[in-house]
């Protein structure tokens, strides 16, 4: 199937931003690339409808959030091994940009849905109502997941010091 020219244009103009969103959602480059490609492929299939009636960027971001939340099931089967290259992006530095690598690492310990809720709330700046719509859950679930995730982040952050666990 040929890809519509304006779809290709959309991918070229928005790919980088979508990839960054994927990186924040998944926490690693390999999964981010996989997620973006999968969501864009689905957008391509729905392109004639989405282009005319919906917001393509919203569509693909929603698809990415939902795929990410459901992906654990696929991963178990696929046994996709994310592999970090020998020369990674060592020059890049979250701290340099004002972030906290401890927080970033602690995010990696959250279940996918909890992580997605935090990303949608604090990176995408969505309301809980909007997050509920994106993930297809109730607003109460969004709140409880966010609350649990925030709670875990604090605890999880301290847990990263293993000596503290042994006593």
């Amino acid at each position: 199937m040929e890809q519509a020219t304006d779809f290709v244009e959309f991918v070229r103009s928005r790919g980088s931003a979508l990839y960054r969103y994927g990186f924040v959602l998944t926490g690693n480059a390999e999964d981010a690339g996989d997620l973006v490609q999968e969501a864009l492929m689905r957008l391509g299939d729905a392109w004639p409808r989405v282009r005319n009636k919906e917001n393509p960027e919203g569509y693909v971001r929603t698809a990415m959030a939902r795929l990410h939340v459901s992906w654990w099931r696929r991963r178990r089967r696929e046994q996709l091994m994310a592999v970090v290259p020998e020369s990674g992006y060592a020059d890049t530095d979250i701290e340099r940009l004002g972030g906290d690598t401890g927080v970033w690492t602690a995010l990696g310990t959250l279940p996918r849905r909890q992580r997605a809720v935090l990303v949608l709330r604090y990176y995408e700046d969505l309301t809980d109502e909007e997050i509920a719509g994106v993930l297809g859950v109730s607003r109460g679930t969004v709140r409880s997941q966010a609350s649990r995730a925030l709670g875990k982040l604090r605890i999880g952050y301290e847990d990263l010091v293993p000596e503290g666990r042994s006593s």
Partner: protein
Amino acid sequence: MNTEDLARTLRAAAGVAPEPLGDLAAAVAARRTARTRARTRTALAVAAVVIVAGGGTAAIRNAGGNGAALGPAAVTPTAPLLTPAVVAPALPARPAKDVWPGAVFKMPAGAGDGWRYRPITALDPRHLLVFAERSPDRFERIEVYDIALGTSTVLATMPERPDLVPYYVQGADADAEHVIWYAVGTRDGERVTEFWVVGREGGTPRLITTLSGEAVEQAAVAGGRLVWSLAGGGVFSMPLAGGVMEEFTESSGYRLLTWPWVTQKPLMDERGRGRQTVLVNLETQARKIVRATEGLQNVRCGPSFCFGGTVKDRKPTAVVQRLDGSGRQELPGLSGVGIDSLIADRFVVVFVAGASGDGSYRPAAAVYDRVTGAVGGIGASNGNGGGTFGQGISSSSSLVLYWGADASEKPDEYWVLNLAAVPPVE
């Protein structure tokens, strides 16, 4: 920490995300082509290693076994994301069947009724545990394949769960007396996980318990108990007869490695630096501290050794050492990149990156035996620096590695390396 720190960290992480190389639109088109093709024929049930020639980026995926919601993915390479920086040196490996002649054999890729086999793990040097699948999403039976006789016997048939659709059977594990597996389904919009058990002599499976909430990541059976860990961390157990679920004290943030060992999750951070600092034996409470893994990438540690990689003279060099950092050995020619899980506290599978420039033997991947130092090549190589192989899908890192006996996507036979048949060292 407050939520503003979190928001700033997320923005910073977005800012450091490595830019994907290549044409994303083309990668999406290629993915759709592969997907369309996969829908019209059963995908090869062997993992594929996609290796950037000469470099370190590799991804392995099991080609046939994804969930229905996402559709079957044949070998669908993710576009390479990072520029490879190292060259592939000569590989000190011979084919696995030359290195371990008693452990490599051919077996049929499917049962007599046409359902394909998906290896789980080895029960012993002679017997393999396999799923027979109607489709990559639907495991219908657990069978035991007898290598010596070339025949299989049905151990159990998967129960029908019409009230839990969609329903996926996931990881399995076995000990001397039982085989357990877990399955995920949806009930009233909520995800549930079921644990099932059947005796090693076979029979009707019995439901041990049903959980709701967080996804199960690892499961094991040992000494009459079921043990599992959750994707978000935490290790639990329950008698196989059912009853009270127990959470291991202070196991939050830990995962089951291979019973009885647990360790922190994730095993490494996003840059491949090891995050394991301690391994705990849940039976004895013995603790092993991991030391001296600084400077290594793709670090993973089992109860006896750590494995990782470094770059030396612009060449990938694998490093193996004891948990305390002693006994460090470098293995030139092997990269540290491979399957995350160490197998049976003895074997490591590494991807073999890059095409052979000189026509020398170059498999898709190599198995390193830390006890003898032997290295055996596995997998079907495509000659362009890529290739395919699969690992059995048991919850604990499987003893079975397999690949197609011919180059087709749906081979009639598999080559199998049964690591349970590699002789112990006297």
